[in-house]
């Protein structure tokens, strides 16, 4: 009796409806949709920046320094006569690139390490987790700064430095997910039917932990964006003249009393972008939360 009713429950609730339901729920979440819209618009603006402004991000004009917003320079110019709007658009490229490419490194390291720890268990797991504990004892941003100094100045090395520090969260998450799923029946069933170790991991376990990983990555993006901005603000982020919101904030800082908007525009852009990713992450988490499934 119970067997048949179980079977019925499973067949009326096929696995993919989790994603279908999630998308429906996500689309109902106004904040998440607003965040997504801002991210999309900003990404398009960053990609098509040359179509939106005819100024280059490094194009100086010493006759037009420190101008207030006008028709010619919608957001004014900086101390070297560079157009703030253009720098903001090209700076978005930097922020988005850091936010997104860092996650590839994070996933590239975090997923396999977490999966190995969770699946292998025992000694391997123990050593990996000890190492992760040590990583946690390190203040993130300090380690990034040290790595930054070691790895040198290119922007790819910046991705690497941030990624090398941020993967531990994902590894922990995946390990936890796998430990939880490992005890569930369908994995045992697959193993009983003679599935081979790593095959089982990839075929059954990873797809199941995909939801939490996506959520975690979405929350990691603004963190990476913030890190880049903070480093550039201090002066150890991207190299000049690469435009970066953090560097623009630093440039504007000395002129806070005379030209406060030089500081204001990049600060607000940064806040909005981070807020958007947080809204999206919250929305995804709520949409994918199995506890909400009834």
């Amino acid at each position, binding site marked *: 009796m119970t067997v048949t009713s179980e079977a019925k429950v499973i067949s009326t609730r096929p696995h993919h409806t989790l994603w279908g339901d999630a998308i429906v729920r996500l689309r109902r979440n106004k*904040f998440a949709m607003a965040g997504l819209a801002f991210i999309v618009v900003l990404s398009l603006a960053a990609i098509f920046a040359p179509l939106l402004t005819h100024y280059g991000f490094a194009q100086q004009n010493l006759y037009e320094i420190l101008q207030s917003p006008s028709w010619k320079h919608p957001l004014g110019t900086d101390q070297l006569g560079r157009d703030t709007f253009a720098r903001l658009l090209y700076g978005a490229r930097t922020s988005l690139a850091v936010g997104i490419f860092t996650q590839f490194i994070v996933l590239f390291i975090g997923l396999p390490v977490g999966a190995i720890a969770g699946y292998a268990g025992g000694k391997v797991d123990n050593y990996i987790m000890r190492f992760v*504990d*040590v990583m946690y*004892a*390190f*203040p993130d*941003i*300090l380690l990034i*700064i*040290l*790595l930054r*100094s*070691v790895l*040198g100045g290119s922007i790819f090395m910046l991705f690497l430095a941030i990624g090398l520090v941020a993967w531990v969260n994902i590894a922990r998450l995946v390990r936890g997910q796998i430990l939880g799923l490992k005890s569930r029946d369908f994995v045992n069933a697959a193993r009983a039917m003679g599935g081979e170790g790593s095959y089982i991991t990839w075929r059954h376990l990873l797809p199941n932990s995909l939801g939490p990983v996506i959520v975690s990555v979405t929350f990691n993006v*603004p963190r990476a964006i*913030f890190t880049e*901005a*903070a480093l550039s*603000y*201090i*002066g*150890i982020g991207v190299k000049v003249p690469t435009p970066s919101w953090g560097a623009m*904030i630093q440039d504007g*800082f000395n002129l*806070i*009393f005379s030209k*406060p908007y030089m*500081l*204001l525009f990049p*600060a*607000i852009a*940064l*806040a909005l972008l*981070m*807020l958007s*990713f*947080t*809204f999206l992450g*919250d929305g995804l988490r709520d949409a994918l939360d199995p506890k909400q499934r009834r």
Partner: protein
Amino acid sequence: MFRFIVRRILWLLLVLLVVMFITFILMHLVPGGPWDREKALAPKVVEALNKRYGLDQPLWQQFGNYVWGVIRGDLGTSYSWADRNVISILLQGLPKTMTLGILAFLLAQAIGIPLGVAAALKQNSGVDYFSVLFSTVFASIPGFVLGILLMIVFSVMLHWLPTSGWGSPQQLIMPVICLAALPAAQSARITRASTLEVMRQDYVRTARSKGLLENRVRIRHIFRNSLIPVVTIAGPELANLITGSFIIENLFAVPGVGRLFVQGIFARDYSLIMGGVLFYAFTIAILNLVVDIAYAAIDPRIRYD
């Protein structure tokens, strides 16, 4: 309990050793050395300096010397600060960083916990929506962006507060608010979630079935349980405040540990960098230990042995 603490302290020492090792390796991988100046120093001078600071010895020996120094409570001499002892430099910044961190922590809890509790008790009310918005916004806006906005409003537009510096209480206001924003958001969010969770528990229903006054149900049965997760994140929060403050210290020109540390990085001041990293790692580890002990004190189910 005692054995737990001893074990944790041993683990802490091991972690600090590994942290020192990693930092040491990374520092020496950094191209350039502490004597790189605009105008290159004469090789003779560099040699003499290296000899004086022991930088001519093999790396493993340098590391050994350093660890031995740390054991004796000596973090070495700064290269950039006219031979001053690293400990004395850090101690000079410490009270400022600690003052900011602790004030921000208290402010964050004073805002976050009541807000989270009020939101949970009146779910879906105006307070609740406000608390959710508050936690989302301040969890995602970086402290230094908030600092800039505050500066523009209160210093530039209103001329109420000084933009930077250290010494007067007014100079504390903005840095403390910027630091407190994130932990306040986290505390509000966690308090709300855990209070909602606890309110659903069977034992709260049991308490009500005894006919207790509503206040007693809330204080003894709901809050005592719902604040446990808040305590567990207090350690990481405080650690973040103390270690993460260097950007805020830079922004508001507060001469705290963080600012010294950043200066050390620019000057490639090995011993100052090492001292800073060690200080931060030590702070994080100690705070986590304290929280674990506090955790056992509030939750009788937790027993360490």
